[in-house]
């Protein structure tokens, strides 16, 4: 047999620590997107995962400009602190930011809400696909992580989407070694996820190590909320208290930010990154479990959204 055999004598302690390793892998992935795709975009929402992506892009491409614009699909229902942060960060980096809004899709009639107060979150897919078509993007870089959700745990780092933006989880391209295949025909699309292998804790440790700034709502603050099952629903203009709701002023922080109508904060006193790291290391609830109203709709909510073009 002349099958290859690797020398099993290998160092027990690698030269890079795990954050270095994750960082190097993410930079490699970003550069593969830049090298293989002719017109990529990086999805930047102002959330912590995409903030990490931007730092990784700086490490990958500075002193050059990013070889892609930043793209945000705005539901129009985001916290103003996050939108302000998004704009400030893009400006500070001197990179191009494209914003496309679900409201424009509603005006065009391509998004129709079932009722005025239906969450716009899942309709982002429509607006995203419209933006992809408008600009002819052949790849979108996203900050999704495999530890977030069971369907995401199944997704390739370079995930092929058909011309409807759909993900076919039963027929994914093989993905061997680090030899990523971003080839698509016109109209098809790749979603690339450089921090696939990061956990929530890794993200916070990286934020600490790099001293990254975040929107203030990630840190403990007092906010009016009402309890909905095991979740806290913030009381806002969009999500007002209903009759019978008891409004409480609680000290909370957001573990994930997104559309106001589907993101819930958690009770916390952690007002620094170090305290958040300590909490994250000992939490008993997953990031989305504690915070996402949209995933709780059904067992396969995320998989279903991805099949329809969601990031």
């Amino acid at each position, binding site marked *: *047999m002349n*099958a*290859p*055999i*690797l020398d*099993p004598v*290998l*160092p*027990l*302690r*690698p*030269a*890079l*620590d*795990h954050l270095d390793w994750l*960082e*190097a*892998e993410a*930079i490699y992935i970003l*550069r*593969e997107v*830049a*090298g293989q795709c002719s017109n990529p975009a990086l999805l930047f929402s102002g959330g912590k995962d995409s903030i990490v992506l931007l730092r990784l892009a700086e*490490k*990958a*491409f*500075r*002193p*050059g400009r990013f*070889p892609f614009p930043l793209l945000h699909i705005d539901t129009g229902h985001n916290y103003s602190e996050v939108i302000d942060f998004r704009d400030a960060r893009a400006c500070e980096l001197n990179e191009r930011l494209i914003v496309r809004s679900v409201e424009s899709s509603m005006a065009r009639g391509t998004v129709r809400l079932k009722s005025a107060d239906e969450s716009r979150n899942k309709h982002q897919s429509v607006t995203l696909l419209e933006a992809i078509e408008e600009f002819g993007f052949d790849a979108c870089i996203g900050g999704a992580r*495999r*530890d977030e959700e*069971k*369907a995401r*745990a*199944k997704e*390739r780092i370079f995930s092929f989407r058909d011309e409807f933006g759909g993900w076919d*989880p*039963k027929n994914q391209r*093989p993905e*061997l070694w*680090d*030899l990523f*295949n971003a*080839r698509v*025909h016109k109209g098809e699309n790749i979603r690339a996820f450089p921090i696939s*292998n990061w*956990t929530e*804790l890794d993200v916070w440790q990286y934020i600490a190590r790099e001293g990254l700034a975040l929107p203030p709502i990630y840190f403990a603050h007092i906010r009016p909320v009402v309890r909905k099952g095991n979740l806290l629903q913030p009381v806002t203009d969009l999500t007002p208290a209903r009759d019978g709701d008891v409004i409480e002023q609680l000290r909370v922080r957001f573990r994930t930010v997104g559309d106001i109508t589907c993101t819930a904060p958690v009770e916390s006193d952690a007002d620094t990154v170090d305290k958040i790291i300590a909490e*994250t*290391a*000992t*939490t*008993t*609830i*997953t990031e989305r*479990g504690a915070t996402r109203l949209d995933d709780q709709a059904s*067992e*396969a909510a995320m*998989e279903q959204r991805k099949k329809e073009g969601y990031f």
Partner: protein
Amino acid sequence: MSAIEHIPEFGSPVDNGLLRFLTCGSVDDGKSTLIGRLLFDTKAILADTLHAIEKTSLRRGMEAVDLSLLTDGLQAEREQGITIDVAYRYFSTGRRKYIIADAPGHEQYTRNMVTAASTADLAIILIDARKGVLTQTRRHSYLAHLVGIPHLLVAVNKMDLIGYDRAVFERIRLEYLAFAQQLGIKDVRFIPLSALNGDMLVDRGDNLGWYEGPTLIDILESAPAAHSASDERFRFPVQFVCRPQKADDPLLHDYRGFMGRVESGGIEVGDEVVVLPSERHSRIKGIQIGGRSLPRAVAEQSVTLLLEDEIDISRGDMIVRGDARESALVTRRIEAMLCWMGESPLDARRKYLIRQTTRDARALLDEIAYRLDINSLQQVAAGEIGMNDIARVSFKLAQPLVVDRYAENRATGAFIVIDESTNNTVGAGMIL
């Protein structure tokens, strides 16, 4: 998510780095259950996830929580009770971080198993104690060995169903060893367990008193991580060229940075380098990450290299150190072991695209030396290579590639085959 404080103490809190492992083996041997149980016993499953799979188990009429639901996350997988594609899970102990890949056992999804295996440092090969070594056990073992996973751990599972009988374990161990020897697999260990009951995963349990070796978690905690490349020769495939071209900034006016990842070896400022395939020589002027300078770079680091001389370099070129030039082969013909993954067979009349490091070359099948019969490990003559076949082949290339033998360098010895009509990845190759 971490479970740092729950893990049994293993002495000093050393950091053994990241370990990537996969579970593989035949259908229903208990791979997904094993991972679920491992995560459960290390307290790495958070309350809401556990609650969710409890609910699903109940709804599906099961008496106990089905821990395979932790990784079988797709609707279709849950409906059929099988794994279709790889699931990745993350957990950490005080000692190290783990990336787990749960591979499917079904032959139909072999390519997904290869996907999982290609990045793993260690493979847990499950065997159902009632069934012994099956064809798919052999196939997965061979594939794990072929992609160069240095450590194989054979887990004889479902011991509870055979009364924890030591004789059965020993018989399977001998049967497997004979097969492993035929393959030339050197580093293989055996462990009896019950994934369902949690015997010998994290806790030893009461039923396997006759087994004196380490538990599964003990083995994982101390297994060497293989992803620190063992090849000392510097290899740097260029991914992207950075030319800021800021006319007004004298520092950046002539900046040309070659971006990539050090695939093996190391490099320092001042080292002599050769660019392949052009054979141009230069010296390292600077090494940077994100515009910040470093004195040296080591394997697995993503960096930007600056050279003393203005030479033409683009994506797909390979930078090697001057003293390692001789070892890199620039070639228009490669011989390789090939795993075919395409729905349609490898077609000798068609041109394919081969991607190796960051370089693409058009390729034509030159010769099929043999196809491997997975049961007998015999080399059989073959006119055609179909899905899931493993064969020794050679390709002629329209453009030269810069290669090493896969056995010496996983990064520069591996390639994929792309079918340009579908853009699908249809083959995985390892250069001989």
